[in-house]
């Protein structure tokens, strides 16, 4: 059972990292222009900064 003391916090920590990453992406506007992002990959000289 001792393994639980490591594994449960570890599992939750990993989940929290995922959640933080998503919230970060949301805040920095990664989801603001899904149509544009799909097409931008085709531009040769585009930078990948999101719109601030």
């Amino acid at each position, binding site marked *: 059972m001792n393994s639980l003391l490591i594994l449960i916090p570890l*599992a*939750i920590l990993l989940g929290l990292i*995922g*959640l933080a990453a998503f919230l970060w992406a*949301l805040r920095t506007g990664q989801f603001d222009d899904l149509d*544009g992002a799909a097409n931008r990959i085709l*531009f040769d*000289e585009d930078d990948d900064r999101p719109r601030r």
Partner: protein
Amino acid sequence: MTKLLAAAAAVARPQIDARCAHCGERLPSAAPTTFCCVGCATAHDVIAGLGLARFYDRFRLDPNVRRLRPNGDIAVDYTAHCRVGANGETRLHLMIDGLHCAACVWLIESVLARDSRIVDGRVNLTTRRLSLAWRGPASDAGQFVASIGALGFRLVPYDPAVLARDGDAQERELLRALAVSGFAAANVMLLSVSVWAGHAEGMGTATRDLMHWLSALIALPAVAYAGRPFFRSALASLAAGRANMDVPISIGVALAAAISLFETTRSGSHAYFDSAITLVFFLLIGRYLDAKARGKARTAAEQLVGLASRAVTVVRSDGGFEARVPASVKPGETIFVAAGERIGVDGRIVDGISDVDQSLVTGEIGPVIAPAGTPVFAGTMNLSAPLRIEATASGDDTLLAEIVRLIEAAERSRGRFNVLADRVARRYAPVVHITAFSTFLGWWLLAAAPWPTALLNAVAVLIITCPCALALAVPVVQVAATGRLMRRGVLVKSGTALERLNDVDTIVFDKTGTLTLGRPTLTNVAKICADDLAAAAGLARASRHPLARALVAAAPIGAAAPCVEEIPGQGLRRITERGEERLGNRRFCGVADSRKPGAGPELWLSRPGRAPTRFAFADRLRPDAAETLALLRAAGYSIEILSGDRKEVVAAIARDLDVDNWNAEHDPAAKTRRLEALAREGRRTLMVGDGLNDAPALAAAHVSMSPSSAVDVSQNCADVVFQGEFLTPVVETLRLARRARRLVMQNLAIALTYNLAAVPLAILGHVTPLIAAVSMSSSSLVVIVNALRLQRGEER
């Protein structure tokens, strides 16, 4: 560079069908240039001059999409919209008109990137907005906007704070809440599964308590955070003295969390943390989908600002010209409108005679002859000769502004549509409360159970009856239906449009541009000898008049005749060695024909020594108009035509289409009145129309559709926009709306059945957290899968 230019020209100029190298407008075949107008040539030069001619290769080659032509907008004062940031950068937000695809994005951003002052210029293709930041004074804005305007895009400044207030912010909050609750639900469920397994395997009390405490640690903050949208709405509805669906949801979630915490403190064996948070998660999915569908609808007024921001040339008292914003023109001032320009104010012609295209205001094709003294309206187009106009109204007093007000009024009066899900919720909520409360009383008083047990059972009832599946039933079907329609070129803009389409019993069609294609075509080409046609086309190539254009389009390729003179309101003429050739109206060509004028517009060609020839034009019906109307009639809808056009024309069309109910010569206000009258008779109307004059009527109807060839404004007021030359999307959308309704009903039935089956178990106290979780998740999944059936299935 020249090579690029030549390449672009070659692409845009195949042998038979010569088109403008910039905007793709069809060219007179013998035109010496590859451009249709000076504006396009300038835009092309700018683009090529910056080394960005690749734009033309990237631009999606859809023949129906036209790049906008530059129209010489003046510098509006943008400084009022600029915001200076803390880092010394000035920022301006603009809406872009004429943005079609990624190539346009690339072009705009490339042009902006060349200016070293600009630190950020980013186009959002989804929302068609541009955010611009630069180092320097706000007064630079005009230059940047002009450099993009020269490419043929139209830019309108907006205040992001105003737009973000309603839709965007709410959607973002829901998405954040969804992420938090999703994370929490997954982790709590992980812990719960081990607890459930522990019940069977004999997990120690200490371990179980640890699991419960951990669950509480994750679930309680998550519920508090992610549940806010429901708590807020529940409080608001209670304050208003009503109970909406969020009240039982909030009570259920809050009680489940509280009683679980209580059980945990006294080391109880059951805790409902997972139910509480999963509930919130499922409900948020439905709420988010709903908000997303709603967010797509944009306000009509936003786009109209663009129409009002065109330049007006004011004639000063000393005779000089000056460019001004339309709103600043005072009644009594004289403005000058060149041929081919849009008129910016309401007024009266004081000098000159021309043909004025009023289609934007009246929705009808065919220009009107406008001699001195004729009233003209903002938004109409001066076609053939320069005019001086004395302004009678400008800005907010113009007919255009009046139409915008009509739209707003009509939209307000439509009010809040009573959505099916809300109606169900209103009946359902009290039942839930009473059942849960009686369960508590029953266990506590009748069965003499300790109050925590009674409360636990009451909470189980609340959880089981909580309308997860109910809340998902409608939005999921809606998303599936709009997704399917989108793939067929039909864009559903309003969240409640599909539901409203179901109530429709009367369909009102506009004529021009809706039942018809909205442009004249030569109808008697078979009766005209080739020589006459070629001669007429030679003359017609010199004119921008829509009838002349239609004639050219019908004629084989040839050269423009030299020395053609255009007499506004009458026609074209040229002197040859043998005498005078004329192409124009009946009187102009000296036709002493006593026959009654035909239903449609006509042109006559008179040449020395030959009998005059008549060219008849008509606005052709959409190819499937008759078929579509027959289908709709067969489906039991009553059909009506409502047009601003003349009586004879509408009568002829109505006869062709076998429609008994028609009204002609209705202006925008009259159309709105007619729709209101229908509503008073208890009819639910679907208005199908295009054109600015239809916009108020679209807003006044129970539900509305607009072809995508329509003016932006009417598309914006319409609930549904469809693309292409055909009318069948109307039938398809109505059919799909019916299927969607059937699925919503099935889903509601499934959800209610699940609840009804599980409630007795809950009342008897047999619902453990495991059973609650299984029943909740499975009913939600069944509802989702059922809704996805809409994606497949029969096509017709």
